[in-house]
């Protein structure tokens, strides 16, 4: 408002006045302009300016021009911004040299010995550095715990939490897997379970994408524990567990 009032002096003083009459006329015109007539063209041009800038320069801060994970994209043919890996790509630090560990088999023969050290390292259960580290009972228990958790997430839907092969999905009509508690599977090498989880088996899907290798091995350790849980000799039990046995047998 103050700027509008102050303007006439500046504008009027800048006008060259040759004759008094014309100058007065002009001053009248300028007065009308500065007294409010300017507002119509000014507003109009402001509107046009806003419209133009909204059309081309306007940016929505809530939806900025970068891709979020899995965002849709019109650039790629399948409309997916997160690109699938080109086959054969190896990310830094993901070179899979240790074939026994990553594939669970060497030359088509399943691994017989459980790779405790590699699993513990990959799961971050050992301090970094030192080569000759012990995988003691404490660390093994942690691996089993991890395996139990992952088994219940990924395998129990079909194999049941006990490994009987009667999980919820099987009850809804999925072909039933064999029970883990058979002589054949008890005798199978650890590598067999890892290979099944990695490549699938018959009608069982593979889990290579959903479960990282170390977790797959942890699951294998837990499957072994499950087998033992249903097939332990009474003589092998620690005294505390043996003491608990008769009490359980009494309950119907």
């Amino acid at each position: 408002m103050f700027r509008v009032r102050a303007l006439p002096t500046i504008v009027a003083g800048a006008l060259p006045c040759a004759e008094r009459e014309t100058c007065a006329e002009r001053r009248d015109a300028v007065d009308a302009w500065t007294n409010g007539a300017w507002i119509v063209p000014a507003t109009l041009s402001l509107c046009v300016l806003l419209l133009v800038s909204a059309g081309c320069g306007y940016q929505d801060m809530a939806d900025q021009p970068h891709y979020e994970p899995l965002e849709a994209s019109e650039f790629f043919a399948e409309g997916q911004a997160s690109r699938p890996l080109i086959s054969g790509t190896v990310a830094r630090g993901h070179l899979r040299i240790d074939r026994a560990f990553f594939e669970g088999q060497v030359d088509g023969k399943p691994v017989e010995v459980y790779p405790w050290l590699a699993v513990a390292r990959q799961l971050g259960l050992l301090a970094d550095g030192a080569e000759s580290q012990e995988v003691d009972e404490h660390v093994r228990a942690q691996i089993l715990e991890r395996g139990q958790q992952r088994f219940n997430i990924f395998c129990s839907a079909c194999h049941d939490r006990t490994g009987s092969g009667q999980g919820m999905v099987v009850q809804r009509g999925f072909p039933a897997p064999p029970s883990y508690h058979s002589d054949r599977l008890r005798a199978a090498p650890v590598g067999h379970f890892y290979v099944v989880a990695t490549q699938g088996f018959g009608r069982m899907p593979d889990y290579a994408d959903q479960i990282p290798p170390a977790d797959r091995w942890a699951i294998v350790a837990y499957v072994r524990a499950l087998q033992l849980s249903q097939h332990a000799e009474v003589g092998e039990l620690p005294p505390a567990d043996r003491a608990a046995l008769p009490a359980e047998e009494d309950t119907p």
Partner: protein
Amino acid sequence: MPQIFHPSMNTIARVSIFGAVFILTAIIALLLLVVRSPYVTDVGVVREQPVPFSHKHHVGDVGLDCRYCHTSVEDSSFAGIPPTKTCMNCHSQLFTESAMLQPVRDSFATGQPLHWTRVHDVPDFVYFDHSIHIHKGIGCVKCHGPVNEMPLMWREQTLHMKWCLDCHRQPELFVGDRANVFNTAIDVQLDPVAANALVDKYHIQSKTDCYTCHR
């Protein structure tokens, strides 16, 4: 000069001046209500999806764990939506004739991904990270509601800044045991003693600085 306005106009003028105050307040109140209504916040609104995927069936009835499908929720900012292959793990054998699942089978056969409609989306100027919330014992249900009862996914919370801050100011009202984070059956508020013990145990801080979420 004759009088233009009748004297009674004085009253009308006063009333309309007072009335303007009330009308303005009413308009502002209405705006605030609209902003908080599901019409704007999308709370409770289900979206059209290519496949009517039901968390009620898969989580509530079958008992699948969230991580079977949302595999990256524990160690990344993004929970992840499962690829078609994950659905085919079971649906290669189950409901292979179901018309509802036709888009899934097509997607698997052609390699064209399914285009799900986002239900939750914070603006791009906000940084959100799932992993820290999971590790500090905030259960999925605290933010996503009773997922195991949702035939189609809806938004349970507004995702307004106020909502984030309500919890960041007083995390002890929402914290739970880490072991129960994925358990949709457990949505209780712990008693203050137990809650504060967990806050200490998990080293939970009250993070309300602007740069926590706007970085």
